């Protein structure tokens, strides 16, 4: 298994929190699983170039994105990494169309964009402003906006947190379609075992700023007595 993304000896401190991670990610969908405050979002921000770690290196496809030793630091606009934060951060003053086009590269192929619109079922929303959209529609537009920029890596920060259970159930198939059709390597931050099992092949478990376990999702999670999944106890 070749490492698509490498996070080597990365240390980030903020107040009393300390993130210390050494991990590699293959392509496909990988879950970053853990409780709130484990450092999942911090790690995404470091990978996206939005936060500068105190030490370590970040490499993608062999290209150095950050190296504390050489002070190399590729800015986020040149990393080609799509980021959908938990609050989505749609541009409220722009229409859905303009939101989608914001990161579109010149000469990009129309067929790809048409298929994103179709798969995420947002073609009818293009003239709307984000304020007029429902929670699930906003979620899909944010996802499409990131895809339109043709990222080499996609970072999704708890995309389903804050949505009610029926809506979560409806969004998961959209995410599965994106995973299966567009094949963008993705880091999926969540604290839901069910989402991991529905979407991700591999899992990295974070606790208190450390990587505590990693492996295939079906090895790390076992079914609950009630429907759903939970993390297997450590052996």
């Amino acid at each position, binding site marked *: 298994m070749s490492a698509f993304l490498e996070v080597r000896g990365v240390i980030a401190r903020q107040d009393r929190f300390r993130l210390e991670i050494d991990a590699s990610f293959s392509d496909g969908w990988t879950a970053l699983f853990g409780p709130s405050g484990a450092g999942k979002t911090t790690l995404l921000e470091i990978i996206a*170039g939005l936060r500068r770690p105190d030490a370590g290196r970040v490499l993608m496809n062999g290209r150095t994105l950050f190296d504390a030793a050489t002070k190399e630091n590729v800015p986020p606009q040149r*990393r*080609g990494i*799509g980021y959908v934060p938990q609050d989505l951060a749609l541009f*409220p003053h722009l229409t859905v169309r303009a939101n989608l086009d*914001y990161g579109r590269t010149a000469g990009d192929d129309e067929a790809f964009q048409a298929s994103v619109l179709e798969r995420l079922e947002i073609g009818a929303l293009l003239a709307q402003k984000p304020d007029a959209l429902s929670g699930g529609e906003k979620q899909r537009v944010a996802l499409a906006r990131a895809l339109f*920029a043709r990222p080499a890596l996609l970072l999704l920060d708890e995309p389903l947190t804050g949505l009610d259970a029926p809506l979560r159930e409806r969004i998961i198939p959209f995410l599965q379609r994106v995973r299966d059709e567009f094949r963008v390597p993705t880091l999926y931050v969540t604290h839901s075992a069910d989402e991991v099992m529905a979407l991700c092949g591999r899992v990295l478990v974070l606790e208190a700023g450390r990587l505590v376990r990693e492996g295939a999702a079906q090895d790390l999670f076992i079914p609950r007595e009630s429907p759903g999944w939970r993390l297997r106890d450590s052996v």
Partner: protein
Amino acid sequence: MASLDWPAIFLSLGAALLAVALNLIPGVGLAWLLARRQWPGKAVVETIVTLPLVMPPVATGLLLLELLGRRGWLGSWLHAANIDIVFTWKAVVIAMAVMSFPFVVRNARVALEAVGARVEQVAATLGASPWRVAWTVTLPLARRGIVAGAVMAFARALGEFGATILVAGNIPGSTTIISTSIYNDIMLGHDEEAYGLMVISIGFAFLAILASEMLLRERRP
């Protein structure tokens, strides 16, 4: 019906507009630095910017006179280049600009903080350069607050008296503005002229504050 001091009215309006225009770029730039960046000396700069809001305007005027007078720190240098500031309309503009600067910076800062860093970060991950982020995301979203601040600054500039009278004087037809003209009229017993200008002042101030309030109220929830 007493005649109004039209030259003073026009000078006040023109100088206040120019003062706000001069303030906008440095004011919004500084507000951005205050809202988004941590840097040494930030608290001191913040305090200095706010000083004209609370200092006696006459003291600010005295400081400007020391700075811009022919023997002043900047003024001597300008005088050598044949540029005289004090007791000209330029001094009116500068006094107004200094006195209204805090309104531009403080309102722009609040507006920029309300935009939040998240949308800017996402714009960057979509490939936008910092300039493109500023022009297409930050400024459009902060626009109302910035304009509301500029309108308040304009109103403050129109009401300027203390700093202006020290650094620009009160030369009828040349550096007399609405407020100093009212002062002249009262001193000379021209009460009717003074009342006319008072009504005009109230009208401008009322419109400016109303416009500013309406701009802020229309802001998205």
